[in-house]
Every structure is written in structure tokens, then in C-alpha cells.
């Protein structure tokens, strides 16, 4: 019995630990082409839903990165999320803009037809595309938490 005590104890500890949002739900990618100063600029958008599944924890000062790996290069899209209350969903939108040579790895990964993007499409936007799971990473780097019960009892303002 004694040898099972530590794993059981650890299981309770782990179960009680705060689970930070660790995935982006329904991630989608969209490209946009824009002609500016006689040059073509491409904007890569990623959108998805961040969900706080904790029943008691408020997540504040959440900072993280969306990483898209394409071949040898990794595109990093940093983000910050406003305070996330329990059971709350937040629609995350991150973007990166650059010229063709800078955006080429992403354009190749998603097999975007550049000519079609520049000349056609709805307002030069591509269709929404799924992001291959093997090339996508959602990382939370930093956050602080607060207990919702403390907030309710104190009647605390987020400006304090």
C-alpha cells in the first residue's frame, strides 16, 4: 500500500493544478495580398479560439506565441490575451505582413496561388485554410492567475 501512496498523492496534486489554455481551437489561416508603393505585401492571418476550461481561475497577462514551421524556417507570431475569466472563450487573431521573399515559406506551405491572390479572390483574401497540425504550435509563455472567488468577494476592479 505504501508504494502506491506517492503516485496517488501526486495524482491529486496534478489534478488540482491550474491548467493553462494549451491549445488553440479551430485554427484557421488566411492570406491577403496588398499592393503598396509598387510592391506586393502579403499578410498572413491566424485565427482561433482560446478557451479557459478552469472553473475558478482567471488568467491575466497572458503572453504566448503561435509558431508555424515550414521547412527549415519557423514563423513566430507573438500575442497577448486580455484577462480570461472561467469558461470564457477568446477569439485570437494574429498576423504577419511581409514581402514575397519573407513570406515565401508560408505561401509554399499553404500552396497559395500568388497570382490568383493578387488578381482575384474576394478583396484579395484567400479562403480560410486549415493549418496542418504537424506544422503548428500554440505556446503560452507567461501568465498570472487569480481566483474568481477572491474577485467576487472583494468586488475588485480590473483597474486596481
Amino acid at each position, binding site marked *: 500500500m505504501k508504494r502506491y501512496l506517492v503516485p496517488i498523492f501526486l495524482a491529486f496534486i496534478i489534478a488540482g493544478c491550474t491548467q493553462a489554455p494549451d491549445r488553440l481551437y479551430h485554427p484557421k489561416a488566411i492570406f491577403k495580398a496588398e499592393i503598396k508603393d509598387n510592391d506586393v505585401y502579403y499578410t498572413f492571418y491566424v485565427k482561433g479560439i482560446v478557451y479557459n476550461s478552469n472553473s475558478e481561475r482567471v488568467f491575466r497577462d497572458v503572453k504566448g506565441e503561435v509558431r508555424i514551421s515550414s521547412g527549415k524556417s519557423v514563423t513566430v507570431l507573438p500575442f497577448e490575451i486580455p484577462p480570461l475569466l472561467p469558461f470564457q472563450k477568446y477569439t485570437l487573431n494574429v498576423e504577419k505582413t511581409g514581402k514575397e521573399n519573407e513570406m515565401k515559406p508560408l505561401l509554399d506551405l499553404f500552396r497559395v496561388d500568388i497570382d490568383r491572390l493578387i488578381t482575384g479572390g474576394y478583396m484579395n483574401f484567400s479562403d480560410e485554410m486549415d493549418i496542418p497540425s504537424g506544422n503548428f504550435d500554440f505556446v503560452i509563455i507567461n501568465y498570472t492567475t487569480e481566483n*474568481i472567488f477572491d*474577485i467576487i468577494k472583494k*468586488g475588485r476592479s*480590473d483597474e486596481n
Partner: protein
Amino acid sequence: MKINDTKLYLFFSITTLVIALIIGSITYYSKLVVEPRVEKLIAAEGNVSENYRIAYSILRNPQMFADYENFDRESIWIKNVIIPYMDDKAFHSRSYTPDEKVYLEALMKRRKQGSDLGRNTVVFFTILTLLGLGFYLYERKKVNAQG
């Protein structure tokens, strides 16, 4: 080989009795202390904002058998609509108004459903305890008769 199940029945009865007592204490604490207090706060006509804030701070903690994360029709509405709305209000220190009464009553109703389920569970385990006790006494009488 003689089979003596007396210890088994006794152990079973004690176990079900302990479970009934634990669940009963949680359930009747809710029924006799928590729920009347919250009902009084919700029904109070003066100082609505403060009373509703206290009532929500109590109701925000779900009853053991009525967790807001359970997968049932009512909890989905509570989890997706009521809790985010009321938490947001608390987070931004906005006053509670009589409009929120319907939300508090929904949470109260869920708490009562939970404590009713707790009460029914206590009854169930009490019946099991009595059954176990009955079998224990019968088996003991049989063993004594056999010598």
C-alpha cells in the same frame, strides 16, 4: 467448509453507513444552512447589489451533485451564459441589479436539485445499510444456531 459472511455484511453496512453520513452532512448543510441564507439574500428588497454579490459568491461554488461542469442540459446554459456574465460583472466591479435575480434563481434551482439528489443518495445508502445490517443479523443467528 463453513462460510461465515457476518464480517462481510458488517463491513458492508459500516461502509454504506459512512458514505450516507458523509453525503448526508454535505447535503443537509446545504439544505439547512446555505439555501435558506441565499434565498433570504435574493428576496431582500434593500441593498440589492451587495446582497446579490454575496448570494452569487455562495452560489458560484456548485453543490457536490450539481457541478456546473457536468454534462447536462441545464449546466450547459449555466456554464456558457450565466457564469461568464456574472463573473464578468464581478471582475469589472459593476453593480448587480434586480435583472440578475433570474440568474441567481437559476443557480439556486440547480443547487436545490443537487441537494435533492444528495438526499436521495443518502436514502439509497441508508437502505443498503439496513439491508446489510439485516443480513448480518440473520447470518449471525444462523452461525450461532450451527454452533
